[in-house]
């Protein structure tokens, strides 16, 4: 049936006249005629301004003015809902449904460890480090439908999301990226064009240290044995048998983790990547090596 349609289309292409400006027309409802004032019986006369008064003469008071009565926006007292909103950390949400969608369409490869760079390359999320975004958080929407074995690294993850990923035999880690490293991670090519050495990733601030050293959140600074225990506990809580990843064929890929000071997989801090020469330059000075490996 599809073949018939294709043949028919090709026949049409052969027989119909050439596409020119005379043969084209915009789709129905896409172009709406704009309102032109001061023309004809309907657009002219009062020109949509009403009859006399401030309205017609263009002298209406500002928005919110209530004729002298204290306006609503001044009657209500201020309260600190938005205090320090520009200093609050924001995390772009990534639902499991969207992640499954991306994997199904092939925009994100589940055979490699999934990083923020991979997600951005697959246009899965848009992160703006300049708008106080500190990364990506995993959200539970689609937890029932999720069925992909992946090694994913995000900045925050909720319990149900971790459970859903581990149920399918995957691995979740939460790690911290300070704003400079985040910018580099989101736009690596732009950074490499600058010609600067890759900086080392900073450790989390005081309020986040507790979060990232907790095994329940699968933090990157947490004890691996505690993480194992937490996996078992979660399996008991949500009632699924924890699949053994050591017996998996992709075990090596699933267990690859980044060093706390590393930004990219396979690139260490201090190296300079030059895209034009297609070379990586590594530092040889002792002091530099000491600094970058601290």
């Amino acid at each position, binding site marked *: 049936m599809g073949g018939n349609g294709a043949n028919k289309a090709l026949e049409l292409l052969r027989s119909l006249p050439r596409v020119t400006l005379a043969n084209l027309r915009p789709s129905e409802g896409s172009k709406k005629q704009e309102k032109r004032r001061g023309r004809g019986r309907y657009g002219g006369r009062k020109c949509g301004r009403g009859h006399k008064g401030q309205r017609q003469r263009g002298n209406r008071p500002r928005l919110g003015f209530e004729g002298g009565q204290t306006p609503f926006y001044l009657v209500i007292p201020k309260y600190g809902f938005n205090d320090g909103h520009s200093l609050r950390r924001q995390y772009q949400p990534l639902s499991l449904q969207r992640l499954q969608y991306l994997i199904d369409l092939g925009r994100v490869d589940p055979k490699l460890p999934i990083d923020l760079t991979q997600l951005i390359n697959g246009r899965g999320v848009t992160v703006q480090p300049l708008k106080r975004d500190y990364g990506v958080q995993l959200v539970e929407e689609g937890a029932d439908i999720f069925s992909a074995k992946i090694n994913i690294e995000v900045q925050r993850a909720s319990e149900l999301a971790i459970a*859903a990923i581990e149920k399918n035999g995957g691995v979740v880690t939460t790690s911290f990226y300070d704003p400079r490293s985040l910018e580099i991670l989101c736009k690596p090519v732009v950074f490499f064009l600058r010609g600067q050495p890759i900086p080392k990733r900073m450790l989390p601030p005081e309020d986040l240290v507790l979060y990232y050293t907790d095994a329940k959140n699968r933090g990157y600074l947490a004890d691996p044995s505690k993480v194992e225990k937490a996996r078992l506990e979660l399996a008991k809580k*949500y009632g699924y048998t924890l699949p053994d990843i050591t017996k998996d064929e992709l075990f090596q890929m699933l267990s690859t983790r980044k060093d706390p000071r590393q930004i990219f997989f396979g690139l260490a801090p201090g190296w300079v990547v030059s895209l034009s020469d297609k070379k990586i330059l590594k530092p040889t000075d002792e002091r530099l090596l000491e600094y970058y490996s601290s």
Partner: protein
Amino acid sequence: DRLTISYCRSSGPGGQNVNKVNTKAEVRFHLASADWIPEDVRQKMALMHRKRINRAGELIVNSEESRYQMRNLAICLEKIRGLVTEATERPKVVSKETSQQLIERVEKMNRERLRQKRIHSSVKQSRKADFD
């Protein structure tokens, strides 16, 4: 593994989503043959939760509180754990000595209260200026 888990559609408003998505989790297990619960606890549970047991002798627990199947399952399991712990708890045995101590304490409290009341009353009386 020894629990029969089934999912079905929840009740309540929600339009197309509630109609299509299986989110109500129901867990049932045969109470009499559940060897992971001790015998006396099993009997106690049969007495306490008569309403949850059907004619075939299965204890049924269901949950449709959350939007996610997994969470509803977790809630079901938590409920079952709660039922078992409730049935396991023994009545508190108060030994004779401590019960006597408790009675003594209560009496002491009452005596102290009445003494304070008398003192307060005398204070108020002393403030009265009664000119005969």
